[in-house]
């Protein structure tokens, strides 16, 4: 059953990956990439790496690709013009792909890779891969893990610092000021008589008539 599922997921993965590069519509391509990530997660699930599989879905499918899709939908890409150079660049791209394929074949068929004898150890019943991974990360690989975290943090701050520009002519609200405002700052209640004295009124009309 696992083997059948493996071939099913592998077939979906390959087809979706092909759709990523062949789809005419960029949104379709991005959605195919989502399917790729999801099927890859299912493949990891089959080898009982449930923590990695769910992390892949959570991070790549749930967050990264949503933002990606967000951007792709907002952009108005003319894909026909992008495709124009396809056959011109094909020889270069083909050479690069062929070299990569050759290298991978050399590595994988080498007798040191020993692919035919490679077997995943069957985890014991009750084995918790999340717990095992956490223990390794926070003991044996603590320093590399923290360094990676710092690197990501620096990258994040740098991205914000590079793109953050305050335009001078925009108006924006400061919620702290809004909350701190008192009624007296906004409305001034003036004391005045409800009516003007009646005799003054008659006086003016009188003089008016006279003139």
């Amino acid at each position, binding site marked *: 059953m696992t083997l059948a599922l493996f071939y099913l997921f592998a077939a979906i993965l390959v087809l979706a990956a092909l759709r990523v590069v062949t789809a005419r519509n960029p949104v379709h391509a991005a959605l195919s990439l989502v399917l790729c990530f999801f099927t890859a997660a299912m493949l990891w699930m089959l080898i009982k790496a449930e923590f990695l599989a*769910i992390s892949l879905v*959570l991070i790549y*499918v749930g*967050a990264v690709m*949503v933002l990606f899709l967000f951007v792709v*939908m907002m952009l108005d890409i003319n894909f026909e013009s992008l495709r124009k150079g396809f056959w011109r660049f094909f020889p270069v791209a083909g050479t690069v792909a062929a070299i990569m394929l050759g290298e991978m074949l050399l590595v994988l068929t080498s007798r040191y890779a020993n692919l035919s004898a490679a077997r995943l150890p069957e985890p014991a019943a009750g084995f918790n891969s999340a717990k095992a991974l956490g223990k390794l990360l926070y003991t044996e690989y603590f320093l590399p893990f923290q360094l990676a975290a710092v690197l990501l943090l620096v990258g994040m701050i740098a991205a914000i610092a590079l793109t953050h520009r305050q335009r001078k002519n925009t108006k924006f609200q400061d919620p702290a000021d809004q909350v701190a405002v008192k009624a007296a700052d906004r409305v001034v209640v003036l004391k005045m008589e409800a009516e003007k004295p009646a005799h003054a009124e008659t006086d003016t009309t009188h003089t008016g008539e006279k003139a």
Partner: protein
Amino acid sequence: MMELQQLLQLPLQLMTQYLGTDLAFVGWSLLKIVCVIGPLMGGVAYLTLAERKIIGMMQIRIGPNRVGPFGLLQPVVDGVKLVLKEIITPSAANTGLFYLGPAMVMIPAMAAWAVVPFYPGFVVADINVGLLYIMAITSMGIYGVIISGWASNSKYAFLGAMRAAAQVISYELAMGFALIGVMMVSGSLNLTEIVEQQGRGIAGGSILSWNLIPLAPLFVVYFVSGLAETNRCPFDVVEGESEIVAGHMIEYSGMTFAQFFLAEYANMILISAMASVLFLGGWLSPFPASIPVLGAPCFLWWVAKVAFLLFCFLWFRATFPRYRYDQLMRLGWKVFIPVTLVWIVLIGAWMQTPFSIWK
């Protein structure tokens, strides 16, 4: 309780005898899924009625009262109406994705229920990484909204989808941080273990030993982020019927619209169920175990907690005005995330002291 769990395994054993291991597992899982999804759909149907009734009462109206006694058949009639309605496809819509959108909203809303425990042993899949699974699956619901907003080929729908994407991604962070606090004190990602951990501790399994009190700020952040994730009032700018006339749902009719509707209510129940499991001790009783009947853990406690949280959803809708979009973003990024970060550090320090209550 042991006898009950053995009784629960009986159908599986019978099926294994007659069908073999693989087929029996599939059959048994399907049976469990039906047992969860069936009542869930019923709950969704009657939640819509409860919403109209409760908000009606809060606004001194009667609410639906014509179909059946006290309007109890209203959800059935609504369902029939939605099934019979014609489904209209906009002429320039991307047809395939247009129909995929609502389904993509619906699928995660159902799939997330696979790991929600109702009682020890009563769960479709009791997996080690249940909490992460919930986060991963619910984060996929946003694709349905984005796809349907884009495929409708309508400006309003597209604006709604953009708002939804930004809002859900922002609040997912706060929600994730709130869950980290729960993971820290539980030492597990398994939802059944998280509930059982809340039954131990100084107060011996009463309300005092739940995560609610030590993690109170995280509970508030989780529940309010849940409101924002499900696009409920006061965070329903995604629909914003006064500005963008129902956002991503604008071009949908009949069953395609009903799918959005069902998913929204199923997600509401899911958020309430998760809040009840993570912070309110799930099926544990709020009374100490020394009290004979009231102190015993029971499925009805789970139901009562979920029902109360669902009532809060409706209550908030009737009470609060809608957030403006920039205020909503400010709340998520500048209030909730700092609050959760501070509380996580505080809990972490607390756990290292001799005063830790989670030993």
